[in-house]
């Protein structure tokens, strides 16, 4: 591991000043991803700015009826929070579906959004990887890609974003708040992650040096009837091979409104807007749900070894929406 300077920030202004525009400085939250990547040499910061003691550790109701979640709230505290569980149950479920209890107690909301892909070529510094070393190539396309992207990828990178939390946040129109030395700003989560294209090393639209200060969830009554389902290769403590966050508002057997997002299928949480359009106004039946999934997955471009994900996501969509519809009928 490269030697590094360590600074502890005590307020947000101090933190962004410490980071400045230095390319090789990183904010340290829970460290569950960053420290791991430093050990393997994927990340080689010259300085860490520890933000864990910043006063960004609260979950608060907004006057409009949404929630403001601080960037240093741990995943454990987020999933346990009564208002998260009451108003956005799929968010609590998504967080609980990720990692282990120990890691959830360390990992923070800001860090969760910024975690890196678990693609085996990205994490192995002896292999080429366009995300780690731009222009070096992507061995995954002709290699091990059984858990890689089927949507929105490019010939330069087929890695997936590993977060469960971000899938639920995406379904619920979350907005990321950040601070820079030149002032603060907001980014809707749908604009937060950049398209892959030929620049897979550029992952977010955050300005250079920006510190994520939190995430705002809008008031969203439909989210009270939501669910997160995750499919993985073992029963617990594994990344998804496909997941879905869904919310459904059904009245007299007709879908009045729907939210749907997929995980483990793209370089970002994948908001399924084409599916949502099919769902809205249609009868709440398995046929509608399958048609909605098909509308979204029509854009899928699977590789040789991950075409199973198209079927998996279709079935997952039908299952989770059917559960929500049955719940609504009770």
């Amino acid at each position, binding site marked *: 591991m490269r030697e*590094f*300077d*360590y600074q502890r920030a005590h307020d947000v202004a101090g933190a962004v000043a410490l980071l400045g525009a230095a390319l090789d400085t990183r904010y340290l939250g829970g*460290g569950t991803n960053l420290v791991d990547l430093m050990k393997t040499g994927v990340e080689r910061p010259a300085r*860490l700015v520890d933000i864990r003691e910043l006063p960004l550790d609260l979950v608060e109701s907004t006057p409009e009826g949404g929630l403001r979640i601080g960037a240093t709230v741990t995943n454990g505290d987020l999933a346990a929070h009564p208002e998260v569980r009451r108003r956005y*149950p799929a968010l609590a479920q998504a967080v609980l579906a990720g990692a282990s209890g*120990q890691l959830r*107690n360390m990992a923070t909301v800001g860090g969760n959004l910024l975690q890196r892909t678990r693609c085996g070529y990205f994490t192995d510094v002896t292999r080429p990887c366009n995300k780690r070393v731009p222009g070096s190539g992507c061995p995954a396309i002709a290699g091990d890609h059984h858990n890689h992207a089927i949507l929105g990828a490019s010939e330069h990178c087929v890695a997936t974003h590993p977060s469960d939390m971000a899938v639920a946040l995406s379904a619920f129109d979350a907005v990321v708040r950040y601070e820079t030395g030149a002032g603060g700003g907001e980014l809707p989560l749908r604009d937060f992650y950049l398209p892959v294209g030929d620049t897979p090393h550029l992952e977010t639209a955050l300005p250079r040096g920006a510190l994520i200060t939190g995430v705002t969830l809008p008031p969203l009554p439909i989210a009270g009837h939501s669910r997160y389902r995750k499919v993985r290769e073992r029963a617990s403590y594994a990344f998804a091979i496909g997941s879905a966050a869904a919310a459904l508002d059904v009245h007299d057997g007709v879908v009045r409104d729907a939210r749907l997002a997929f995980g483990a299928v793209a370089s970002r949480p994948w908001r399924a807007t084409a599916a949502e359009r099919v769902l809205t106004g249609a009868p709440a039946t398995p046929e509608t749900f399958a048609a909605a999934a098909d509308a979204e997955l029509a854009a899928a471009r699977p590789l040789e070894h991950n075409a199973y994900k198209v079927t998996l996501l279709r079935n997952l969509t039908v299952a989770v929406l059917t559960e929500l519809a049955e719940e609504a009928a009770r």
Partner: protein
Amino acid sequence: MAVSTSSVITLNINGEKHTLPVDHRTTLLDALRERLDMTGTKKGCDQGQCGACTVLLDGRRAVSCLQLAVAAENREITTIEGVAEGDRLHPVQQAFLDLDGYQCGYCTPGQICSAIGVIEEHAAGWPSAVTGDVRPEAGPPELTAEEIRERMSGNLCRCGAYVAIVDAVARAAGTAAGPAGTEEAAA
């Protein structure tokens, strides 16, 4: 600003303060084992995947291999060496002994620290990934064997002592372990 790659830090471990110089790259796990001779905390994968290095930070379970020692200043650190009260074992330790919740014992300190955390998280009403209804109105889930298995999934046991581990956690939590049962194993 002065740039330095090492610092003199003070760690609060099991109620005692320890002051030591550390290279910033030192993890809490290595500080405990290599610098402070507290070898109860074990190094397994060193990647946050196996749970052998689990300790309690401010009362919450965490993996010490991904925790930088310098960033653990101002935290209350509890290791396996600090969970008993004098000669009286912690109830989780006693349950692991009584029910043979181990074979070789290497993962056991991490299992025990994790189980202490699990029991406190459950007592605080935290749901898990197998909790059917996470809404607070549904009330806290019963700590069934399924709940224990999910909540303890961050601790691997290469000997495969999982059945007895689940029983031990259930006994320490004062609940029935569900289908696996606890009474026969105790006999």
